[in-house]
């Protein structure tokens, strides 16, 4: 093995990542070549300096508590619908009421439907966006700043419209995940309430009219139009959020797939 080859492979040798044959070849070369042997000793010295130094940052004492409480809080937000259902159950007095509630529990007992799961995901994404100081990746009320920001990050171009004139100023955009797919998240504001608008290409071609879901104090609207699924979620009251959804439906020019 030549010096050149040895220099190429010396790191793999140092890290124990070479196969047996090349390992032996390097060992032989190091025995016969002083210069390469010295270079190898340098690498060993560097490694032991990095490893023996106190360069490892241990987590500060309070971080574990902080992470634990944040994750517990987040998981509570995700499980709450089940808790609610059982609370309702204890309230039930008449058989009829009980029967209806039992029937309403069936989806939870048999596992949530795809739509339910997605609705839950949308709420979780909304809650998370407000909780971890990660509301927007690109902060701008200018649609011509927000829309191009998604270029290269998504394989579709979401329609972005500033709705300040209608009392819903655009706050910015963010990349998120829904349904195991990247999704464009646009953030709007109504007074102190934030609205997340998620846009994602639809796998089905058909258009779906608006559906409404209310859960955990949040309102959701979703619809499919021109090959795109739209989700609107906020803690804003239903009628104002409805107004926002209508604005999006009327304003938005069709999204274009790339």
């Amino acid at each position, binding site marked *: 093995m030549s*010096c*050149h080859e*040895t*220099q*190429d492979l*010396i*790191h*793999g040798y140092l*890290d124990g*990542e070479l196969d047996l044959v090349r390992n032996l070849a390097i060992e032989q070369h190091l025995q016969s070549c*002083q*210069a*390469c042997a*010295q*270079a190898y*000793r*340098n*690498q060993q*010295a*560097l*490694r032991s*300096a*990095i*490893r023996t*130094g*106190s*360069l*490892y*940052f*241990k*987590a*500060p004492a309070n*971080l*574990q508590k*902080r*992470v*634990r409480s*944040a*994750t*517990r809080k*987040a*998981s509570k937000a*995700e*499980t709450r619908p089940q808790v609610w259902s059982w609370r309702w159950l204890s309230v039930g007095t008449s058989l009829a009421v009980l029967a209806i509630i039992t029937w309403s529990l069936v989806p939870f007992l048999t596992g*949530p439907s795809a739509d339910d*799961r997605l609705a*839950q995901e949308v709420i*979780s994404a909304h809650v*998370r966006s407000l*909780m*971890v*100081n*990660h509301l927007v*990746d690109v902060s701008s009320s200018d649609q011509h700043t927000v829309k191009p920001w998604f270029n290269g990050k998504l394989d579709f171009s979401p329609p972005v419209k500033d709705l300040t004139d209608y009392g819903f100023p655009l706050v910015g955009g963010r990349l998120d995940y829904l349904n195991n797919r990247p999704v464009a998240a646009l953030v709007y504001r109504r007074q102190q309430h934030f609205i997340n608008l998620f846009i994602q290409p639809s796998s089905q071609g058909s258009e779906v009219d608006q559906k409404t879901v209310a859960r955990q104090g949040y309102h959701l609207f979703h619809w499919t139009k021109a090959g795109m699924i739209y989700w609107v979620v906020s803690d804003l009251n239903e009628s104002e959020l409805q107004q926002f959804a209508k604005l999006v439906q009327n304003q938005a020019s069709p999204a274009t797939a790339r």
Partner: protein
Amino acid sequence: MLEPNQLARFEQTVLPHLDAAYNLARWLTRNDQDAQDVVQEAYLRALKFFGGFHGGESRAWLLTIVRNTCFTWLRRNRGHELTIDLEEEIQSLESPAPNPETVLLQSADEQRLKQALEELSAEFREVVILRELEGLSYKEIAEIAGVPIGTVMSRLARARKRLQQSLTAPLHQEVDLELS
């Protein structure tokens, strides 16, 4: 959707790797407070994706998420630092004649080593941290950083060369001063 026993399982498998998560975040952000924020966000993401984790190396799994959260954070807050030299990346390891000089690491105190590490670009720094401080294999590092194994090796080689250079450079300067 997360069930209570799943949260318990999450805390059992993922929470013990808090030091590894913080160490990586701390080296990549180079700041305690930012590292703590990034770690918290990474854990929330990990919780979200935990349903898709079917056993295996939970530390590497978590570090992948921490790493990605860090780079998202870096792109947003310190975009200028993520300018890895393309030439650097594709250049083969030249220097056919090995450098015979001794590193003299005995004299290189920890502070200097730390500084030299911080001066590396984030892509180089992460492979050194994962390899030397976490003891991960090339394959694991490749999966975490989302690059081929060959790139891990060449980045490590480059990073180590840079470290040696910056640890020996001041000595050269001293020599130059004496000569002038």
